[in-house]
C-alpha cells in the first residue's frame, strides 16, 4: 500500500496548524492603562506604599498581579498589606494579585530591602473583554506601566512574551502532547509504508 508523501505532509501541516495556531487577538477594552507609582527614597525595612492608578471607563473589572523586587517583602498580616477589597498575597513568590471593579486606585505596602524601587513587575488583564477566541491566555496580559522605571516595563514585556500561556489552560500541555503523539504516529506509519514502496 502506497501512501502519498505529499498528502501525509499536508495532513501533518494541517494538524500542526490546527493545534498550534496563534490566537488572533481582538484589541480593545474599557481599561486603557494601569500605572504604578513607587515612592522615591525607599528606606530599607520601612514600609512603603505602592499605588496602582487605573485609567478607564466604568464599568470595568480587571485582574492585576504585581511581582515585587527580590529581597522586598510584604507585611506579615494581610490587613497591613492592602486595604483593597479583594486581593491575595503569595509571599513565597513575592506576588500580590488584585481583583478590581470600578476603582481608579488601589494601594499595597511592601517592606524594601534597599532604596531602588525599579525592580517591580506587574501585569493586568481586562476581565470584561469579549472575544470569540477559545483558550485565551497570557497573550492578553498587559504590563503595568511605571513612569519611573521604563526599562522595567520593557523587561516585563519580553518576559511575558517568553512565557508559555499553557498555565491557564484547563489541561496544560495536553493539546501539544496529543498533537505530538498524533504526528509521531503518522510519521511511523508513513515511514513503514514508504520504505516498502521504496523497495519496490
Amino acid at each position, binding site marked *: 500500500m502506497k501512501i502519498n508523501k505529499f498528502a501525509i505532509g499536508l495532513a501533518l501541516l494541517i494538524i500542526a496548524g490546527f493545534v498550534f495556531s496563534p490566537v*488572533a487577538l*481582538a484589541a480593545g477594552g474599557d481599561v486603557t492603562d494601569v500605572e504604578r507609582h513607587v515612592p522615591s527614597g525607599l528606606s530599607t525595612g520601612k514600609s512603603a506604599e505602592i499605588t496602582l492608578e487605573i485609567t478607564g471607563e466604568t*464599568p470595568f*473589572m480587571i*485582574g*492585576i*498581579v504585581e511581582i515585587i523586587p527580590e529581597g522586598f517583602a510584604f507585611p506579615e498580616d494581610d490587613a497591613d498589606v492592602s486595604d483593597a*477589597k*479583594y*486581593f*491575595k498575597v*503569595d509571599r513565597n*513568590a513575592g*506576588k500580590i*494579585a*488584585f*481583583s478590581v*471593579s470600578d476603582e481608579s486606585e488601589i494601594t499595597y505596602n511592601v517592606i524594601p530591602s534597599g532604596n531602588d524601587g525599579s525592580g517591580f513587575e506587574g*501585569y493586568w*488583564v481586562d*476581565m*470584561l*473583554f*469579549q*472575544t*470569540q477566541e*477559545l*483558550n*485565551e*491566555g497570557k497573550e*492578553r496580559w498587559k504590563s503595568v506601566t511605571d513612569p519611573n522605571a521604563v526599562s522595567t516595563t520593557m523587561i516585563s514585556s519580553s518576559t511575558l512574551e517568553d512565557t508559555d500561556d499553557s*498555565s*491557564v*489552560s*484547563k489541561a496544560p500541555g495536553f493539546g501539544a502532547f*496529543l498533537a505530538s*503523539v*498524533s504526528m*509521531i*504516529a*503518522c510519521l*511511523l*506509519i508513513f515511514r*513503514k509504508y514508504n520504505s516498502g514502496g521504496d523497495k519496490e
Partner: protein
Amino acid sequence: MRPKFTFITAILLIAGLLVSVMTASAVPSTIPCDNDDGILTEKEVSDAVCKYMLEDSQYSLDDVGDASYIFKFWDGKPKTVTDTHDREVTFYRPVERIITTNPDNSRMIIALGDLDKIIATDECTRSGCVLPRDNNDEKIAPEAWKALQIHGGGQLDDIPETNTRKEIDYERMAILKPDVVFDATWYNRGDLIKEKVGCPCVDAGAGFTFAESYAHIQLIGNALDQQEKADELELFVRSKVDMIESVTSQIDDSEKPTVYFAPRGAKKGFYDSVEGRDFTRTESVYEPLNIAGGINVAKECVGDKINVLSEQIVAWEPDYIFVAWSSSSSFGEPNGVDFVMETPELSDIPAVRNNNVYSCLYPYCRGRPIDRSLLNMIYMAKLLHPEQFSDLDMEAEGNEVYKQILGIDGVYTELAEYQPFLKEVN
C-alpha cells in the same frame, strides 16, 4: 514488535482524535467559578480572578472573564431570554461565539455590532442575502464587501458554513463550540439544535410587519447584551416608518390606490409549478405597502402561502401592481413588469391600462430582510403618492438604511446600478 507498536500508535491516534471531538462538544451548563448554588457573588468572582492572576487556579482566563462578565452584567445569575417561539433560553456564559443559520439573524447581529462574534453561518449569509451579488454570483458593491470585515480578517463569504437551505451540519457546529445558535423561526428546531450542538439556541426572525421587526431587534439585542444598540436601531426603523406614515395617514382610505403585490416576481409567468409560486403568489400582510399608502387587494386572504387565480387579480382591479424584481432581468431577460404588461388576460386591469405596473425589491432572501422592507416602503410611497413624497431622496434614504444596518456608506447607490428600476423614482 514493530507492527504491534504501529498498531498501538494508530489506536492512540484514533483515540486522540475522538477525545478532541468529545471535548469540543462538551459545552458548560453551569456558571463558571460558581460554588454550584447558581449565583455568583463578588467574592467568588474576585477570589477566582486573584487566583488566576497568581497562576494558582483551575480556571482559565475564559472562565474568570466570563464569570466577571456574568457578575457585572447579569447580577451573577444565568440569563434567560424568551425567543420567538416562546421558548425560555438560558445562557450560562456570555455570548462570544455565534452561529447563525439564516441571513435575517446574521444581518441583525451585524447591525448590533457583533459581526466579529460570528464563527459560522449559512450559505445565504455568505452569498448574496446580506450584501448583494448578481446572477453570476459576482459581488455587487465590492467595497462594501471589503468594508464588512470578519474576526481575524476576511469577508462575509470567508465565514465557515455550517448549513445550507436544506442541510445542517450539527457535528461541525458542535466542534466549533458556539455560545449560541440563532436559528430561523420556520424550522422549529431550536430544541433539536440545543441537544445536538450542546449550546442554547434562539429561534428568531423578522416578519412583514414592523412590530415583528422590532421584536426581532429587541430579542437579538437582549441575547447579545446590546440593548442600547437595539434601541437605537429600533428608533431608526421607527423614524423611517413615521416619516412615511405621518404623510400617508393623512390620506383618506378612499383616496389610496389599491395594489396587487407579487412578492415572488413573475419570472415564469403566472405560476411556476417547481417552486409553487410566481405572479399569482401574494402576501395578505405586507406592512411596508400599507404604510406607503397603498391598499393591499389581497388583505382578506388567509394563510401563509397564498396563490390566487389570475382571474381574481383581474377582478380585484388594482390601480397599481408591484412585481418583485428578478435577478435574471439584469441579463435583459423579460422582467415581471414586461410579463404583466404583455399578458392579454391582464390587459383590462387599471394598473396595466394606466401604466402603473412597477418592479420592487424582492422582499425575501431566506427570510424577510428589514433593509428591503424599509426600502420598499419608501420606494412604494414615492410611486403611489409622488406629489407628497417628491422631496424624498430615495438614494440618500437607501444609503442611510444600509449605513445604519451594515455600517457602510454607498451600498444603495451600487445596488441601484444593478437594479436600475430603483433609480426611476429618485
